[in-house]
């Protein structure tokens, strides 16, 4: 089975989730746990870094939709960064750039929260 793992780093009051490997229906629960954990701890300013993500399936995309409403209701956001062209095209096809802020660099995304 393709591997997927995540790590979370705190940058001021922003939490960055780093994705690595293959995000699909089988591996999505790991990312869901990250979001659940952050929300339970009232951490609503979230950046997701796609630098090391090799592949995302439609089920993987669905994870981002599951939490966004709750996070935005709590004055937070999920901002996305460092996507490869291939991953960006998948998000773009579905119209995600109309719903999410997508940045080239992690620093840019963090700065948009006004954290640093």
């Amino acid at each position, binding site marked *: 089975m393709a591997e997927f793992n995540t790590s979370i780093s705190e940058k001021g009051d922003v939490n960055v989730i780093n994705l690595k490997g293959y995000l699909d*229906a089988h591996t999505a629960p790991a990312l869901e746990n990250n979001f659940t954990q952050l929300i339970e701890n009232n951490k609503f300013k979230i950046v997701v870094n796609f630098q090391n993500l090799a592949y995302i399936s*439609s*089920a993987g*995309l*669905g*994870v981002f*939709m*599951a939490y966004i*409403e709750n996070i935005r209701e709590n004055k937070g956001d999920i901002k996305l960064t460092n996507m490869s062209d*291939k991953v960006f095209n998948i998000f773009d*096809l*579905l*119209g995600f750039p*109309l*719903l999410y802020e997508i940045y080239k660099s992690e620093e840019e995304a963090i700065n948009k929260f006004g954290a640093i």
Partner: protein
Amino acid sequence: MNLPVYPDLQIASVFIPAFEVGGDYYDFFEISETRLGFVIADVSGKGISAAFIMAEVKGIFESLAKTIERPKDILIKANEILRHTLDSKSFVSAAYGYIDLIDEKLFLARAGHCPLFLLRENETKQIKPSGLGLGLSDNQYFNQTLEEFSITLKENDTIVLYTDGITDAKNEYFEDFGDKHFLEILLANSHLSAKELSNKIIHEVSVFSSNHSQYDDITLVIFKCQQKPKTDGVKEWQNSIHQ
């Protein structure tokens, strides 16, 4: 599936299910003798839940295509329904359109689905009007961002609709079949009939991914506007009958 028969229009379609149940769906709607509606859709995720959603999507389009004309309005209504019934992790990419054979026009709206390809005079045009996937957003935002596309069709135009099971097909090195490869095949074979082109594409995808199991459903729908008999020719033929 029994393909509809329309004058001056070739139609071909292929559906190859993956080993794990997927959520691809396509259909035709014979709106009138001169107007043909069509839809292609892909439900997010796989398995039984995707199959159930696909069955719901089929019902939605079957009923909407009977009562609403404009593709944009049909997708808006479909989003309204699916926004309420889908869980927050699920969505559906879809493209709905119709071909009017009297006006010789194609109308299409796209809700997050793969672009449509138009092959015309040795060129390939990717058609990708703006639109969010169904179930991703509330109706207000969905409506604002949804565009409708229309084009006057010419003889020998070929229209290609597909799901990402084609472009995401993998070889033994886990490389994608890809948009570029797909476009090259379309261009090199634009002279073929709808059926021949569809066979050619499926053959190329099968050869490319022969050492890798098919992970996603593959759906392909092709329309080709046939060359019409010349008006003069018709007159000559009619004259010869009367003689």
